[in-house]
């Protein structure tokens, strides 16, 4: 809220009855549903989390778990053009004291690119192939700043230099196809950061890159975050990347959060069987693993017919432990297991502790 001056005059006063939160970014009970011919796709179904400036939150999950939809909802990308008619959004997204779900598209547009920016997975399709890289960065800057092209161009060169592109004064006139994959991703980061956004959302920023380049990009994001003090949401399926960069972790399954906590907590004492499954199915380079991987059986759920009760129960090896039919009938809510560590599971704390220490941890 300290930055209100930056975003200009009047963007969405907090609506009466709903309290603006303390946190820099707070998402409350977010639901994003898409009506289709086959039925209602519940991509995100009641998600809540908060994030402070200078922190990095990693959202982890398989494809179709709703992690990308969440980030697009925050950016207001679902409401653009005709797409806006095909989405049902509810809940609240508070960014720096402003509510975004109920804000008008114009209000969100003023924030987009300035207050919040996004890095996409595939920079080749995220950048326009017909325009020079520099021109695209200049455009992003001039949308929010009343400056001449010359000033904006200087700013673009400065940003390209900052993200480690050699000869930025020359490369600013290059086209996206003339950049290598890693360079393109750097250019996109430059574009995202040109307005010093306070929230940076990175949607699988390194998935398409080689490990050596991935290491470079993660380092860059970390350095830039330190420098600008922005909040970062990192969307990924790679737990290695999460351990590398995240302060907090949110594990999504079937459009809902199943576990949330600090990275240390989630990696040291994961509480949800799905998180165990993710950890168990990853081959690790730092361990001698002649043993078999422990995969999660079955496939991710359909978001049209999300399984009743706990959405994970058809794949969960421990679904029968809780008494009665509770895993199939009652949807578990997030419960705090320790300070700042939440998990949505019917298993009792003792059972979880036992399974983790006796069955899962030794095999990892």
């Amino acid at each position, binding site marked *: 809220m300290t930055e209100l001056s930056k975003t200009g005059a009047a963007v969405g006063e907090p609506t009466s009855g709903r309290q603006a939160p303390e946190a820099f970014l707070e998402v409350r009970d977010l639901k994003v549903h898409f009506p289709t011919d086959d039925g209602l796709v519940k991509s995100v179904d009641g998600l809540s989390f908060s994030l402070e400036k200078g922190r990095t939150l990693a959202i982890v999950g398989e494809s179709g778990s709703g992690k990308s939809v969440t980030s697009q909802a925050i950016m207001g990308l679902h409401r653009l053009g005709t797409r806006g008619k095909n989405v049902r959004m509810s809940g609240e997204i508070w960014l720096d004291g402003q509510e975004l779900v109920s804000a008008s598209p114009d209000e969100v547009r003023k924030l987009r690119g300035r207050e919040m920016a996004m890095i996409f997975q595939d920079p080749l399709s995220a950048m326009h192939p017909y325009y020079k890289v520099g021109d695209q960065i200049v455009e992003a800057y001039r949308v929010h700043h009343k400056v001449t092209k010359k000033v904006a161009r200087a700013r673009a060169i400065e940003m390209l230099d900052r993200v480690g592109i050699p000869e930025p004064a020359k490369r600013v006139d290059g086209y996206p196809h003339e950049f290598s994959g890693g360079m393109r991703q750097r250019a996109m980061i430059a574009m995202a950061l040109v307005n010093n956004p306070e929230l940076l959302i990175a949607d699988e920023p390194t998935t398409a890159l080689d490990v050596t380049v*991935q290491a470079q990009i993660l380092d860059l994001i970390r350095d830039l975050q330190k420098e600008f003090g922005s909040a970062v949401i990192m969307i990924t399926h790679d737990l290695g990347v999460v351990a590398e960069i995240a302060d907090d972790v949110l594990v999504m399954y079937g459009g809902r959060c199943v576990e949330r906590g600090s990275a240390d907590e989630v990696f040291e004492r994961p509480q949800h069987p799905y998180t165990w499954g993710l950890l168990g199915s990853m081959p690790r380079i730092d361990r001698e693993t002649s043993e078999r991987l422990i995969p999660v059986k079955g496939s991710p759920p359909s978001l049209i017919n999300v399984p009743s009760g706990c959405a994970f129960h058809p794949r969960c090896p421990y679904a029968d432990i809780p008494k009665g039919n509770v895993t199939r009938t009652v949807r578990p809510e997030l419960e705090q297991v320790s300070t700042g560590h939440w998990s949505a599971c019917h298993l009792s704390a003792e059972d979880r502790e036992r399974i983790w220490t006796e069955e899962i941890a030794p095999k990892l």
Partner: protein
Amino acid sequence: MSETKKTDTVAEATVPKQASAPEERDVLLKVEGLTKHFPIKKGILQRQVGAVKAVDGIDFEVRKGETLGVVGESGCGKSTMGRVITRLQDPTGGKITFEGRDITRLSTGQMRPLRRDIQMIFQDPYGSLNPRHTIGSIVSAPFRLQGVEPEGGVKKEVQRLLELVGLSPEHYNRYPHEFSGGQRQRIGIARALALKPKLVVADEPVSALDVSIQAQVVNLMDDLQEELGLTYVIIAHDLSVVRHVSDRIAVMYLGKIVELADRTSLYEAPMHPYTKALMSAVPVPDTKRRGQKSERILLRGDVPSPIAPPSGCRFHTRCWKATQICQTTEPQLVELRPGQRVACHHPENFADQAPQDTVLLSVAKKASELVPDAVASGGPTGKEPVAEEAEAAEETAAAEAAEVSEKPEAAEKPEASEKAEASEKAEASDEEPVAEKESVSEKESVSEKAEAVAAEESAAEAAASGAKTGPGAKVTVAKPAAGDDSAPEEPTASAGVAADAPAEGPGDTEAVAEESARQAGSGSQESTDK
């Protein structure tokens, strides 16, 4: 996949078919000097103006029942290699031997019977299945094409295969779009296994899948190998996956194999700097390791273009250990330790292969900024004292000599600079410092030979260049004494030195040395002006 894999049983099972010599009995596929160049054509006449050297001279063999993993960054030629060894693309040169038979130049018709034995699993489970065909028709295609009538009929066999890969036999009449990515990959695997192949080449079999599904497919391939005695060549960019599935691993860089070793040696004591950098870059799902950022080696820039690969060692443009010899002489893939073949002049975790060559290139100095001190000063696992000593000697020598002579590229024409380097190298081997002589004596005969050759070469070159380049290009090499730690020799520098003196951003260890180099550089600049 355990170390003690089914090699024995498999070998036994296939012995009757083997006609070749017993020592070659275990080798299923042998590749020698394989190259694949894609021509670049221009103009109306489509004249060839260059070539993308996707695979540029690789040698390896695949033994029966083992899994060979192939790793490398995108564009290193690993997929092309996979397609060439299965003869989906024709090699430009080299030789491919399958079960003792040369298959390099077989025609499509001649290859067809062999397709039974060599199958491929593709990366993209969406692109590799025809959307208009049912699963039954996709998986039974190999039977149709090969004219094979399996026992009990095609349909029954296909359903058995579907069950084998964990699908339901009722899926026979469904179409690919009705399946998820993981299931489609299983269909691809079922198709590849239909004719009971001997060799399966899998190109990124799991990289398009989610982690949990990835584990299912990895386990499935594992089981099938045990059940059917398959031999795999698995091409992947994910080093964690490759570690998990492979018995031996080949690391590729720009169309070449830079290191080929069994899994344990490679992951515990990688010798090629590129392997080391590659492995240090893999993120590990363990927050405790986050503090240990010092282990990470960052590589600068991207892989160079395979159209005009760098001279000498292809990795020298990004390597933190690169010296003159790396720029001029291409290292051969030599078996340094039993079962570990490496192509490097200055390997990690082992005695230096070119200790007379201690002068770091300026690119190497820049690269070494990104290398943590712990790594730079000898590597974490210096198991052999010999290797450690040699390396330590090399390190100090390098640190001292680094500032003295540099690649005189900026000042001279490229041609001239090459000659200058050569002459410098010749001198280096003449005035071999004490510290280095020690390590030389501890070296193996192989490397000594290589050295001798290199020295001869450079001497010849130097002689040839002497007249052209003149005294201006002469570069003097420092004489680092053993044990002398900090104070560098006063460099008697000349033209070549001045050229690179203002190299920016020296590494911490070199800070002092660099400072004096600058002074020396400015001094010698005057001498050049004269």
